[in-house]
């Protein structure tokens, strides 16, 4: 009862920003998506019958055991790869290839090492030539301020720390005004402290403009802290195991992570993930044994 109250409260609070959010947000719809790799005789289904709708203006977090097809899913959402069967619809239209309406922030930094931070950020608009020069400069300066990298504009990526690289990459994605941001374990590999700061920073950024966001992670705390909806994925072949609505108020604060609600969410998600991981473990154990014997 209490939960549903909170949900109402939350959604009514959201209405004020709803008008703003719909214009730069889009919905994604995955319908029975299947994708496998390998030859006909040694084919492995990585994603099977994956159906999910991602609501506009929401931060949807996909969490799953490592080695499940999270990155394959991201590649299809971004348009680098196509589903074997099923379809992915962006605001009702099927995705045909990569486009600036969906920006991906990758696991590893994909900033181009031969460009300075500034050149990296303006890369997209420059090659499309769709923003007038003075406007582009203003926009870039604004974003650099927003991600706190003003003094590092003219540095090359290798001169930036891991966290700074991620923020530069966020700026590079945002300058293209995508309808959807896709984050593929973007904070993996950052040290714990920097990771926490990035999560806080990122959640503020999201709450500012409420752009539809698909966030992939294997960290359960990170997932709950960020998510509007938490999608727990099953093991390979990947499909949706369970959808958990995270009814925490926004703006999110790190101290919410110690509340009892979060504890409950976490317990539920952990149990599911543990089951899935165990399934995988059992599947792979005999194989590992036979290797040792040989």
């Amino acid at each position, binding site marked *: 009862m209490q939960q549903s109250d909170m949900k109402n409260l939350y959604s009514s609070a959201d209405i004020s920003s709803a008008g703003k959010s719909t214009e730069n947000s889009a919905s994604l719809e995955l319908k029975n998506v299947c994708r496998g790799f390998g030859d006909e005789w040694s084919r492995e289904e990585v994603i099977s019958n994956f159906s999910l709708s991602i609501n506009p203006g929401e931060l949807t977090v996909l969490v799953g055991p490592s080695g499940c097809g999270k990155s394959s899913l991201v590649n299809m959402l*971004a*348009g*680098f790869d196509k589903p074997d069967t099923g379809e992915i619809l962006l605001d009702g239209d099927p995705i045909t*290839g*990569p*486009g*600036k309406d*969906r*920006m*991906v922030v*990758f696991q*590893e930094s*994909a900033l*181009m*090492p*031969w*460009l300075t931070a500034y050149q990296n950020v303006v*890369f*997209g608009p420059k*090659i*499309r030539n769709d923003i007038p020069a003075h406007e582009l400069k203003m926009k870039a300066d604004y974003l650099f301020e927003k991600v*706190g*990298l003003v*003094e*590092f504009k003219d540095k*090359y*990526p*290798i*001169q930036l*720390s891991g*966290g*700074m690289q991620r923020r530069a990459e966020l700026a*590079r994605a945002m300058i*293209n005004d995508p309808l959807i941001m896709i984050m593929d374990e973007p904070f993996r590999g950052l040290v714990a402290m*920097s990771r926490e*700061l*990035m999560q*806080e*920073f990122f959640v*503020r950024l999201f709450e500012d403009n409420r752009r539809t966001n698909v966030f992939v992670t294997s960290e359960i705390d990170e997932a709950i802290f960020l998510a509007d909806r938490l999608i727990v994925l099953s093991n390979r072949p990947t499909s949706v195991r369970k959808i958990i609505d995270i009814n925490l108020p926004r703006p999110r604060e790190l101290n919410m992570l110690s509340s009892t609600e979060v504890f409950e969410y976490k317990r539920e998600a952990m149990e599911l993930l543990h089951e899935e991981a165990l399934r995988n473990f059992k599947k792979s154990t005999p194989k590992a044994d036979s290797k040792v014997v040989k």
Partner: protein
Amino acid sequence: MTNAVQSESIISAPRKKSNLEKLIRNKSLWRGIVALIGAVIFWEICSQSKIWFGVEIPWIGKVPPPSEVLEAWKKIFYYSGYWESWYLSTARVFAGFIIAMLLGIPFGLMLAVNRYFRDVFFPPFEILRPIPPLAWVPASIIFWPTTEMSIAFVTFLGAFFTIVINVLGGARNIDVQYLRAAQSMGAKQWDLFWKVVLPGTLPSIWTGAAVGMGITWEVVLASEMISGGGQQGGGGLGFFIWSSYMGGTVAQVIVGMISIGIAGYLSSSLIRYIGVISMPWRRLF
């Protein structure tokens, strides 16, 4: 957030030093100088006293000592033919090398990015590649109207294959993330080529160029010896060595050898320097 920025932004700027100060404080430079002086002293001692403890020193004991080589060098230092040889060999090396760069870089990039191009041109390329440049000398004398052109052609072959292989390998090894990122930001094939593939291949281009430059010196000298150093009778360093050998002064042969070493070192350094200049992001390691 401001805290986050501050805590991460501590990258201390190094104190500015003048170039001269940097040069004097450069430990690598001093080690290099000491090593060179050491090598010359060792050489001098070994070739002065040819027999140590009743054992004849092999190789180095048969070579004239550096002092004698220096004498020979002094004699020809003001002789214009010697410097003309420098000029001729350098000109041949750079002619072949520059043409190899101009043709090799686009050829390698095309092999990397276009499958049809690769299917058609890679097999013949691979058959021609293992043929040593020197094996081309007789054929190239027949091909080209002047000896100068034949020599430049052989030189070109020496650098061309190395450059192409490096460019091809470098371009095929570009991280797919860069291409994907560029594609989702709206890059077309043309942009991918100029804005991602080309800058991403630059390190390999300069590696290939530095190796190729070394090979051109090896090749130009050998081809000068074989073809008799050009029609005008003007030698080149390779011919200089050959004629010194025929004339019978071993010291002068060594002068020629060292000259080549210095010329090769200088031209490789030049290539490396251009490489560093053209890739500012690599200077920061």
